[in-house]
Structures are given as structure tokens and as C-alpha cells.
């Protein structure tokens, strides 16, 4: 079995007397889309900073692609990371920022996946404008372009939709979906629970630096990891969905179906239904991740 793409064991980070990250252990396997959930100040960004070699753990082990993480370690060549907001040299153009960043690694800009990156950025002629004239959304898109230059196997994204308008948020989510469809592994921190629910296969919940829960999104939602579906041909849809490997059970309820999932994303259900030529009327969780998240945090507060 191959090494996990990301693995931590007993990861700790102290700032003086404050334990920002406390004994966190988790691993991310190839192809997974992992959500790192927690309230502000929970330790999410600190974990991502340690994963990218920007900060050193106080204790514990940290590996990328099976190798220990050190500052500027070689594994980072296989990682596209956006930690906090995308940031650039403001007095240089978007294009020159991309070029200088790439060439700082000692590689010719001709080797970068520029066409794909520019298509993702979608900045058109603005790519030649100085970055100080960009909106936050444009900077975020340029940030995605930068991290895609190296065709990364692992994407580390810290609150990637912060500061974006609804249209831009949708674009970013669709982009993450396309990248994961192409085989990329994603570790994504967010406190937007619906974002994690829509995008991620797995999630871990952090609070006060400690790991509260870790598992598939369906597992985290628990028995409520069920999805309510309405289609134009309920019987046929039941047969189709029941045959999916990510589905454990399908029951009829009212006009629709309640689908219990083992793993996978709700978008898999939608894809199966539409591929079969059925019309999807409704697809929604019977309980939101938000409910489960708040329950988990409340349980931890009681326990501590």
C-alpha cells in the first residue's frame, strides 16, 4: 500500500503557553478531498503552515508523500498551496508575478503549465496589469493560477473562497471539482460548512487545537448522513442508486427517496441520476453538516 499523501502523528504547536495545535493525528489518501473544519482560531491555518514548512511543529511527526516535512523540502514541488489569502508583489503585473515566482525555483517558465493556469485565472488582459489594481477575487484567481503552474498532485487550500462574491465562489468550487476529477488530492480548510459538504469526501473537525472528529462527510453527519432525493421516476432511480458502491441503502419516503451513503459526494448521486436520463427535482441532506458540526463542538466543550 502506498504512503498517504499527507500524514500527521501527535502534531503539536505551541506559541508560548498557548497550544495552537494539540496532538493531532490524521492522514489523507490519494484522491481524497479532505475538509479541515473548525471555528476561527481552531488551529486550521497553523496545521497548513506546518504542512507547507512555514512553521515547525513543537512536537509530533508530519509527512508529505511519505517524507518528513522540513522548511522548503523537495516534496513541496508536488504541492500547490494557498495559505490564507493569495498574495503577490503589488507593483508587478499578474503575469510577471507568475513568471518570477516560477523562475525563483530555478526552472524555465516555458516548463510551467501556463495555458491551463491562465485559463483558470480568467483574467484576460488584466493579467498584464499591476496586481495592486486587482480586486480580492482577481487575486484569488491569480493565486489559483500560480498553484496550478506546477500541475500539483496535492492542493492545500486555506479558506479558498474567503472574500469572493457568490459567482466567484461557485467558480472556485467548480474548479476544485475539476481538479479532483483529474486525480488531485485536496486538503481544504474552511469554516463554511456547506462548502465542505459540497466539495469534500472527508473532513476532520478541529476545535481549540484538538481533533474532535475525523471521517467521511457522511460519517460525520452520522445517521443523518442520508440524502433526500426526488426524481421523475422514483422506482428506476431507487434501482440505479442502490447499485452505486457509495450507497448503503435506499428507501422510499413520501414522493422521494432517502439514500444512505457510506462514502463519496452527493454530486455522485446527481451524476448517476442525470446520466441515466432521469430528471433530478431535489437533492438535499436530511441533516446538514452544520448540525453535526455544532453537535460535535458542543460535545467537546462538555467533555472538557
Amino acid at each position, binding site marked *: 500500500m502506498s504512503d498517504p499523501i499527507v500524514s500527521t502523528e501527535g502534531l503539536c504547536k505551541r506559541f508560548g503557553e498557548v497550544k495552537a495545535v494539540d496532538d493531532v493525528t490524521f492522514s489523507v489518501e490519494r484522491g481524497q478531498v479532505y475538509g479541515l473544519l473548525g471555528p476561527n482560531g481552531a488551529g486550521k491555518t497553523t496545521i497548513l*503552515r506546518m504542512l*507547507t*514548512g*512555514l*512553521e*515547525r511543529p513543537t512536537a509530533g511527526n508530519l509527512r508529505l508523500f511519505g517524507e518528513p516535512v522540513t*522548511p*522548503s*523540502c*523537495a516534496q*513541496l*514541488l508536488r*504541492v500547490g*498551496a494557498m*495559505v*490564507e*489569502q493569495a*498574495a*503577490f*508583489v*503589488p*507593483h*508587478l503585473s499578474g503575469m*510577471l508575478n507568475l513568471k*518570477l*515566482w*516560477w*523562475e*525563483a*525555483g*530555478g526552472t524555465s517558465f516555458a516548463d510551467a503549465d501556463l495555458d491551463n493556469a491562465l485559463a483558470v485565472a480568467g483574467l484576460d488582459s488584466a493579467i498584464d496589469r499591476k496586481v495592486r489594481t486587482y480586486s480580492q477575487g482577481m487575486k484569488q484567481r491569480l493565486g489559483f493560477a*500560480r498553484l496550478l503552474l506546477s500541475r500539483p498532485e496535492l492542493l492545500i487550500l486555506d479558506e479558498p473562497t474567503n472574500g469572493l462574491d457568490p459567482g466567484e465562489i461557485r467558480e472556485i468550487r467548480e474548479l476544485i471539482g475539476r481538479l479532483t476529477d483529474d486525480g488531485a488530492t485536496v486538503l481544504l480548510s474552511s469554516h463554511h460548512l456547506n462548502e465542505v459538504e459540497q466539495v469534500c469526501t472527508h473532513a476532520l473537525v478541529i476545535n481549540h487545537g484538538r481533533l474532535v472528529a475525523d471521517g467521511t462527510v457522511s460519517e460525520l453527519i452520522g445517521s443523518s448522513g442520508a440524502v433526500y432525493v426526488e426524481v421523475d421516476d422514483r422506482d428506476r432511480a431507487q434501482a440505479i442508486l442502490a447499485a452505486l458502491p457509495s450507497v448503503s441503502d435506499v428507501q422510499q419516503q413520501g414522493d422521494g427517496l432517502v439514500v444512505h451513503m457510506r462514502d463519496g459526494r452527493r454530486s455522485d448521486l446527481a451524476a448517476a441520476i442525470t446520466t441515466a436520463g432521469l430528471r433530478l427535482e431535489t437533492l438535499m441532506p436530511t441533516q446538514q453538516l452544520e448540525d453535526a458540526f455544532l453537535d460535535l463542538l458542543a460535545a467537546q466543550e462538555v467533555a472538557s
Partner: protein
Amino acid sequence: MIALLRTEFVKAARRTRTLIIALALVGLPTLIVVAIKARGNRPDRGDRGEGLFRLASQSGLLVPGAVLSVMSGFLLVVIAGSIAGDSVASDASWGNLRYVLMRPVSRGRLLAAKASVAGVLIWAATILVAIAGLIAGIALFGVHPVNVPGLSLGGTGAGFQLSTGALVARTALGAAYVAFSFSALLAMGTFFSTLTDTATGAIGATIGVYIVSEILDSISQLGVVRYGFPTHYSDAWTTMFTANTFSHDMIAGVVVQAAYFVVFSAAALWWFRTKDIRS
């Protein structure tokens, strides 16, 4: 490393601030030369660089020395301090430092590249002042040997003549000495720049240390302690023109600068390699 140097140089060179500094470094020497021309041969008032100033009207070849003697005391300190203090902290304040490190670029190599580019810019600033002074000086005063009278400039014997060849060579050596005398400032500025994510803080600390050094150096009661201050030997090069001697203080100045450079460069490297990047 060449690619990294190039990228850091482009980032620094393309700033508006760099262009403004370059214009100031060309414009101010020109103004000073015009002032020398306008002043003529009025009596010595004992101002800083006065001796070189009075002599400068004899030959355009002496003007770079006169201009450097004035500008190295404060303006070049401010400019060099800005360049050095800004070297790491500017990238940190933009939030771009973490992305360069995640490229990944080794911290030691990045710091070396940033300090090297800062050093090149400081040398370029000094040389620009000298060249601007030289061009303006030659245009207004022409190229001639210089007759330096004795005693009046603090010398102890008879006067002497500096040929045009000697003037050129000593001007080049003087400019190199002035530029090298910012080595301590370069290393301190780079060190301070690794300590903070606020460029103005690093710049202020760097210039502040130099100002304090100048103040303390003027207190003769401090005795031999002053010999260790980074500014103590800053003007040692002027005796090449005013006393026809290559002062031993120039060698001492080089040693002091080198010592500060080594100590603060090592401190900057150690700190930058071990610190958490939180910007």
C-alpha cells in the same frame, strides 16, 4: 541561484521607490556642484566636507569626492538603510514571502539573494552619486590637476599636487570605501528585516542604529569604545585628498565593517532559517 538573484533584482528594481531614489541620487549631486560653482572661493567656515568643497572647484575630478563626503553622512545612510531594511520585510508585508518559500526556495538561498541584491543596489547608489558628481563636475570645472595647500586643510606640512590620474584612482578608491562602509548597515538591515513583517520598522531600526552610532562616536569621553562603532571610520578615506595619505584608519574601517557584516549576517541567517513564517 542566478535565477533567484534575477527575480529578486527585478522585484527591487521595478519599484517606484527605486526610480525616485535614482533620480535623487543624480539630481542632488548636480545641485551640489552648482552650489560649489556659485559659492566660488569664499572663506572656509569649517563645515563638513568643506575642504574638499573648496578644492572641488579646481577640477571636476575632485567633485565626486566632495559630493560623497556630504551625502555619505546622512542621505546615503537613509537610502542604504531603506534598501537593506526592506530586503525581507517587504516581501513579508505583501504576504508574498510564504509563497516564495513554498515554491520551494531554501531560506538560506533566498536570504543570500535578497542581501546580495540589497548590496548591489547600495553599491549602485554610491557609484551613481560619484558618476553624477563627476559628470556635473567636469561640465562645470573641467579636468585639471588639483593643488592642495598645506595646513589650511588640517595637513601638517607643505601643500601637494594631485594629478588627474591620482584623482581618478583615489576617487574610485574613495567611492569603493564609502560603498563598503555600508556593509555593517547592510547586514544589520537584513537582520532587522528578518525580525519583522513591517518594512518601515526594519528600516527605522537600521537607520536608528547608525544615527545612535554617529551620536555616540562624537562623544570623545567614550575613548577606545568608539573605535568599534560602525560609523567611526566612515570618513577615513578623505585624507587621500586632503592630506595625501592613505590612512591606516581605512584598514581599520574595513576590518570593523567586515566584523559587523559577518556577525549580523550569521545572526540573520540563523534567525531566518529557524523562524516561523507567519506573514
